[in-house]
Each structure stands twice: as C-alpha cells, then as structure tokens.
C-alpha cells in the first residue's frame, strides 16, 4: 500500500482550527437571519400581516415574496420552486417569510408576531395516493430491451412483488448555513455551505436581479453534505442574500437542526413493482420493473435520480429482456433531493430483492444465483441501456471475497446455529455493487482549474470541486504535487471560489476527483510546458553544446532537470524567480471534459458512464426474532477504486459509505403524520448509526493491481458506490428472518429493516407457515 497522505485539514480538524462558515469572524454589524416556514402541507395563503413584527426594535427586515427584487425562483433544473411562497404553500417547511434581527431571540419574537390566514387544502402525502390521482412531476420515463412480455410468458418460473424503500435524512453534522456580506455597489460576497457554488451564485444573482459577476460564492469546507447540499444549500444562500440585500448588512442563516430536518428534502422513498421470469438454474430471462419515487412538492433533481435508479435496476446482473418504467410522484412533502447513491441504492435494492427471492424459491444459496447472473466478461455484457460493461471486475472480486470471507464454511456454521436456536437466528449474505460513474446529464461532465505558482516556489491550486469531507482537496493537492514532481507541502488548495474557477458543475456523482483532477493536471501541464521552455533556455545558455531541448526537461524530486544531461538541473523553488525575470506567466487555467460518453435520455440508450466502479460485501448478522434487535457480527468488503489516489481516504470512504448505507437499510426510518408533519425531526426520533452499531468484526480491503484506463492517475471514483454495499446487511437480516421457517416461505420485507419490520415479518412468516402446514388450524378460517 502507498504511504498514508493524511487529509490536508487533519491537523486543523483535531485542533478545532478548521473554519466552517458558522465559525467565520464577522464584525458586530452581523445580523441573524431566520426563515419562517409553512405549518401546513397544502393551503392557500388568504392574507398575511407582519407590520407588528417589523416594529420590534432590533428587527431590521421582514420580507415576503413581494420584496424579492429579481425572480422568485430557486428551482435548480425546472423553475418550479419559489424562493418564498406565493399564494399557496405546498409542503410543511416551505419558506414563506424572512427575518433579519440583531439576535436569534428577536427573530423568534418577530416570527410570533407574523399573522397569516390560510385556507387548508387536501394534501397528497403518499406515493400510493399520488399514483391514484396521477399526481406526477412529469411524464414517466421508459427503458426497454428485447421483449419482456413474450419472454415472461415462456419463462419456467415467474415471481411478482413490490418493494418499499424508505427515505433517508442527510443529517450532515453542519446544518445548512450561509453568510452574506455586502460589498460596494451591487457586489455581494457569499460564504455558503454548498456543493455547487456556481449554481448558488446563479440563483442569488437571479433572486436579487443582478448580474452574476456581482456575486462571489466561496466555500472552504462543508461539515458534511452527502448530496444534501447539492441543490438545497442554495436555499439558505438565497434567503441570506435577500436579507443582506434588504439590510445592507452581513447576514447569516444557520438552520437549527429541527428546522433543517423539517425544511430540507431527503433521499427519495420508492415504491417499486417487479415481475421477473427465470429458469430452473436461476438465470434471469426477463424482467418488468416499475419504479415510483416520491419527488415531493417540486422537481429538484428527481428526474436525474429516477434515471440513475432505472440505470441501476440491473445492478451487476444481465437481464436479456427488460422494461423499466419510472414515475416521479408529486406530493405535499419537501422536495426530495440528491443523497449519496442518487437513486442507485433504490434501483439496486430491487435487483437484489429479485435475486434473493429467486434463490429462496429454488432452495439455493443466493451467492450462487448472483454469480450465475453476473454480467459476463465477453458475452452477456451489455446493459439494458446499451453500454458495454468493460473491465468487469465482478468475478475477480467475487472469487477473492468469497475466499477471504470464508463464505461457504460460515454458511454451514450459520445453518448449524439456526438449527439449534429458536429465538436467535443468524443471517449471511453477499451482494455486489456495479455503479456507473459520470453525471447522466452528459454536459455536466466538465471541470476547470486555476493553478498559480509563486516566486517562492509555492503552488496554489484552485479547482471547481468542493470539500465536504471526502478528501477531494487532499487528492487535488496530491495530483498537483505529483504532476509537478514537487513535495506535497509546496501545494496548497484554495477555498472553492466562483471568481477563480467559474461555471462549474456540482461536486457530485462521485466524480469530483475524476473531473477536477484532470483539470488540475491540464493546468499543470500547461505551466510545465512554459517553464520547461524557459529552463531549457537557461540550461542552454550555460551549456550550449548540445543545447537542452524543452521536451527533455523533466520535473521530479522537487527539481527541474534535463533528462539527457542530468547534471543540468535547478531546484524547483530556485527556478521560479527566474521565470518572472524571463516574463513567463506562472498562472494557468485547466479544463477537462469526460471523453466518449453520450446518452439519449428519450431512447434510454447510449453510453452514459465513463466506467463502472465495482465492490462486494459479505455481511453476517444475529437477529433476536422476539424483539427484532439485530447485531452486525462481521462485514467483509472488497472494493475497486482502481489505482487509489489515496488509500487512507478511499478506505475511509468505503467504511463510512457502508455505515451510512447500514443506517438507510436498518434503523433510519422517516415518518410523517397524516397532516404531513415530519415526526422524526430530531436525533431522539431518528436513529443514525453510532459507534456501537458498526460490525463487531469489520474487514475492508481495496482491490489491488487494477489500474483504471483514462482517468486521473488510473484511479476510480469512490464516494457513492460503497453505500450500496450495505444491501448485504439488509439481506443478511432477511436471511436470518427467513430462517425462522427454514427459508421455505418468502418473507414480507421492506427497507429499512427496523426492529418493527423484523418482528412483523417473523410473526407473519409463522402464521403463514401454520397455514401452509395445517390449513384447518389456520387463524384465517
């Protein structure tokens, strides 16, 4: 393994010096901003009056939609999201008014004095009701290959079913936060916890009705984001900007945790239906999938998320005849949004349920069925959307992991344990991940960088990506240092700033290092070209015979040298002052766009992904079938990140992604009441994995010697794919549950597998088992 390069902020993280937006020093002019949001899921605003609120001394602004100087819009893709409600409210948590005051207490006092009259309307709060009323955010999406109807008719076995997968709250530790500081004239400086500074900049310019060159958005680091700040960081930013504009004073909005949970969107819950035909061996012959997501009250990224779900409903399995329909439901809940995996987990959960069911119905081990259905190396290797699965690592990972995890012996041990124990059951499962890397909106696959070298030989890297804990800045520092052949501490990565690198894409789709790394490399290559030419001249002036050719000048070990005449050399730092004397520009922009991808959304056909990331996970659990309590006994992961840019960071991403996935799969349950109030709006009602919830035995490895062609330093993306490894934990629990009836009956199961789901599933299995064995004693009779 390569030596560990710690996170570039590690020393600041452990000393408390790392500055997050809420920590920034601001003068006493700072005002506290607050958003007042709708208490009703669906209502007409008959009237409102905030004249009393405005009179409170220390309250500097109370704003409604009427006070927005520009467009009242903050929809990122489709313009269907008001910045502040107009006429109607369409979810609890929708922003209605903004307050800026000298203290938080004054904001709350002002909020209490705002009077609003509503006419309550009927809300839509479930996917089922939305489907019934055909309440959709847009037309259904479709993908198709072969003739699934015909193939289903001919298939020896057919299963049908539905799967419910739940929402998930991001729970980034740093809640949504933005600080706006007015500049001169129309200028506004924005410090926003956002994954997408360029979009934040655009939306602020639009709500304020000013040009984009008046708005500068900067983000040093986020205290976690996980997709929750890809579009919805924009909201607090637009609100703070409006208050800053109105008061001409610095304004900061930092949401309280409860407000953050109520206001912001979550991972989309899905209700999926499937009909799958297979042969005696368990090979899938045909599948019809219908995926229905809860988009919430506005579009946000819901269609891209649905698209990714549809593109991952195969997971690692070849399905010759397949149709997929995706519907995004419009409900009266906050608009759901990106969350690590971006629809992938919801699609894969369906694929894994199907394979698990096939195995149970044939009385076989699910590992065997999985391997049988993997995309082939040479044949059966084209996905249902036309992309060939190249550099397929599935078999390599499967063989290594099944051996290293001792799967088959442990299967015997699990069965032996289950035969002896009535109230405790063990479960074991292996699941694969094949995750496509690239934004499926092809044009977004671009990145920029600005690299400056200073006279003392230090380097400042600006790139379009944002740091949210994934280690992107560390990787960019490494890329610049490696490409320049200099020691790491010459390179500093700047806070992401829209005035340095403009018009960027969100840091998302796990592609941050892929895209920005190439852009940084491009800028470094340009600078090296200029420097090499000047250094070749310098060398030649000293030793004209033979002259140094610029193409022979190389950069290594903090030196610049002529590789044909290694005695001709100069320290990197010593060469830089000479560059200025020789009028060589030491600042360059770099740019990159992902090559050879393209995708026809309408036809559902093409090559949306630059490549696939692969991984596999074996989980073993112990379930108390009387209480539903489960324990993760052991987890073995083998994951493919190509040639890792930073194994320490990548392993951390795999470990953390898996744990976050375990939360989604087991304890993180989101509930609303019948009025659309979020019931799970705080950590006392929403259970996120904690240190005691990690596997007792946790073995995580990166697949070795698997360079990835055509990516930055042969690496692969990492952030999202490991989250879906947790599906093995979910299916291990299901495996333990079905052991209650010796795997003879298919359990009713949903995601997350909370204690309640487990207990109800066990009880249901027992009832059905009695019915099956002795129908005359059946309680149904």
């Amino acid at each position, binding site marked *: 393994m390569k030596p560990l390069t710690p996170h570039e902020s590690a020393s600041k993280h*452990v000393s408390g010096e790392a500055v997050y937006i*809420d920590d920034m020093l601001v003068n006493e002019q700072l005002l506290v901003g607050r958003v007042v949001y709708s208490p009703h899921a669906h209502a007409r605003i008959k009237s409102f009056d905030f004249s009393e609120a405005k009179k409170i001394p220390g309250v500097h602004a109370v704003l409604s939609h009427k006070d927005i100087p520009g467009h009242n819009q903050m929809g990122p893709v489709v313009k269907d999201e008001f910045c502040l409600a107009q006429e109607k409210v369409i979810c609890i948590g929708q922003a209605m008014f903004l307050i800026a005051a000298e203290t938080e207490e004054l904001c709350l006092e002002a909020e209490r004095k705002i009077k609003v009259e509503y006419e309550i309307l009927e809300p839509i709060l479930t996917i089922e009701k939305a489907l019934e009323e055909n309440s959709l955010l847009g037309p259904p999406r479709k993908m198709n290959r072969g003739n699934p109807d015909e193939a289903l008719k001919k298939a020896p076995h057919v299963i049908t079913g539905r799967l419910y997968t739940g929402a998930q709250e991001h729970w980034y530790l740093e809640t949504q936060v933005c600080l706006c500081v007015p500049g001169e004239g129309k200028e506004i400086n924005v410090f926003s916890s956002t994954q997408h500074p360029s979009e934040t900049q655009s939306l602020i310019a639009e709500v304020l009705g000013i040009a984009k060159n008046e708005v500068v958005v900067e983000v040093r680091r986020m205290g976690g984001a996980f997709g929750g700040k890809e579009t919805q960081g924009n909201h607090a930013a637009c609100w703070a900007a409006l208050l800053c504009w109105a008061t001409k004073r610095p304004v900061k909005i930092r949401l309280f945790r409860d407000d953050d949970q109520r206001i912001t969107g979550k991972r989309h819950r899905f209700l999926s239906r499937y009909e799958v035909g297979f042969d005696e061996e368990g090979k899938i012959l045909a599948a019809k999938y219908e995926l229905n997501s809860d988009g919430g009250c506005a579009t946000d990224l819901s269609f891209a998320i649905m698209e990714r779900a549809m593109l991952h409903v195969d997971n690692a399995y070849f399905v010759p005849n397949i149709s997929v329909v995706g519907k995004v439901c419009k409900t009266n809940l906050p608009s759901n949004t990106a969350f690590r995996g971006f629809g992938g987990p919801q699609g894969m959960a369906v694929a894994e349920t199907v394979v698990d069911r096939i195995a149970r119905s044939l009385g076989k081990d699910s590992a065997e069925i999985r391997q049988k259905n993997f995309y082939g190396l040479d044949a059966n290797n084209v996905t249902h959307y036309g992309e060939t699965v190249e550099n397929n690592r599935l078999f390599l990972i499967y063989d290594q992991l099944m051996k290293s995890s001792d799967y088959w012996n442990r299967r015997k041990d699990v069965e032996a344990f289950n035969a002896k124990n009535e109230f405790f059951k063990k479960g074991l499962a292996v699941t694969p991940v094949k995750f496509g890397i690239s934004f499926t909106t092809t044009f977004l696959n671009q990145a920029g960088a600005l690299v400056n070298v200073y006279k003392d030989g230090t380097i400042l890297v600006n790139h379009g990506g944002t740091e949210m804990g994934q280690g992107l800045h560390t990787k960019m520092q490494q890329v610049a240092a490696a490409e320049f052949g200099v020691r790491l501490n010459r390179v500093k990565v700047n806070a992401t700033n829209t005035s340095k690198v403009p018009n960027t894409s969100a840091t998302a789709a796990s592609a941050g290092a892929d895209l920005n790394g190439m852009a940084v490399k491009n800028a470094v290559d340009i600078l090296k070209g200029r420097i090499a030419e000047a250094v070749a001249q310098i060398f030649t002036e000293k030793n004209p015979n033979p002259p140094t050719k610029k193409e022979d000048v190389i950069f290594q070990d903090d030196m610049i040298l002529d590789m044909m005449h290694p005695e001709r050399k100069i320290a990197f730092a010593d060469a830089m002052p000479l560059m200025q004397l020789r009028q060589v520009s030491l600042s360059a922009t770099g740019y990159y766009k992902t090559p050879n991808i393209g995708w026809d959304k309408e036809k559902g056909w093409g090559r949306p992904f630059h490549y696939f990331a692969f991984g596999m996970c074996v989980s073993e659990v112990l379930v108390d079938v009387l209480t539903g309590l489960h324990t993760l006994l052991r987890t073995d992961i083998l994951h493919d990140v190509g040639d890792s840019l930073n194994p320490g*960071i990548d392993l951390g991403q795999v470990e953390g992604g898996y744990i976050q996935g375990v939360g989604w799969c087991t304890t993180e349950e989101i509930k609303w009441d019948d009025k659309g109030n979020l019931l799970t709006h705080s*950590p006392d009602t929403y259970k996120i994995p904690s240190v005691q919830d990690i596997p007792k035995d946790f073995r995580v490895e990166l697949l070795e010697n698997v360079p990835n062609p055509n990516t930055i330093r042969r690496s692969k993306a990492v952030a999202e794919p490991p989250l879906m490894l947790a599906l093995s934990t979910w299916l291990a629990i299901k495996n333990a549950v079905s052991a209650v009836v010796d795997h003879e009956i298919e359990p009713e199961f949903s995601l997350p597998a909370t204690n309640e789901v487990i207990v109800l599933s066990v009880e249901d299995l027992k009832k059905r088992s009695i019915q099956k064995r002795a129908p005359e004693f059946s309680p149904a009779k």
Partner: protein
Amino acid sequence: MSSFTLTVNGKKHTVDVDPDTPLLWVLRDSIGLTGTKYGCGQGYCGSCTVHVDGEAIRSCTMAIESLSDKKVTTIEGLSPNSSHPIQQAWIAHDVPQCGYCQSGQIMAAAALLSEKPDPNDEDINASMNLICRCGTYNRIREAVHVASENMRKKELGQKGGK
C-alpha cells in the same frame, strides 16, 4: 442579562448573558472559541462536547448559570500544538473526514482515557455515543486504543526513567 465568570482553558472570562444561555453559545459567541460545534442543540449528537472539571459534557444543554467556579476545557485548550495522544492518534489514523464532529469526539475520547486509561470496545461504546455522519467510527475506536497504548507506554517510560 447577568454577569458570569468562568474559567476556560485556564483563562478567566466574564460574560453578560441570560442565565439559561447554553455554554456552547457562550464559548462560541461571547468568548470566540469556535472549535466547539453546534450539531443538534439537544445533547444528542455530541459535537459540542467539552470538559467541565475534567468530565465530558454536552455544552449545548448546559446552562451558564450552573457553571460558576467550574473549569471548562475546550478543544482549543486540550493541549498545546495538538500534542494530546488522542489528537496525535487521530492524525495518525486519518480519522476525520468532514471534521465537524471531531472536536466533540476528541474531547469525549480524552475524558474517557483520563477516567479509564485502558478502555475496551464496550467502554468506548458506552461513553462515546456521538454521531459522526461520515461514519468514521471504526477509526475512532482504533485511534482510542492506540492513544491509550501510547499514553501507557509514555507513563511506563517516565516511571522507568526515574
């Protein structure tokens, strides 16, 4: 508003705030020590953990009026130059990802080690129930064990030297 005097990281501070103001906001807003973070404001997540008389407490639910004559230590005062074995182990094991919860995690771990110099996994589970959404738990656990070992080695070395 009332006047309160408290000792933070060895330095006396007098602040004028409401008696029920949580210590977290006194530290962050009145004194300017921003290493201690707001996570949930309800004492669940642990990002705001500091030491009061050596014990780990959640500063977001601790009213300033209950702190007279107490000594408060925050992440900024845990050690000079991040030299505490916990901080060293945190860097060596590359624990932080986004870093936001880590001041709290470190303060909780430091308090645990001063009470139990050789904690097992159950001890860590019991006393470090803090949320890290990046999921750095297994590294936190490893780093606590390593710091514990290093602290004991150092102590043995010091005793041996005498």
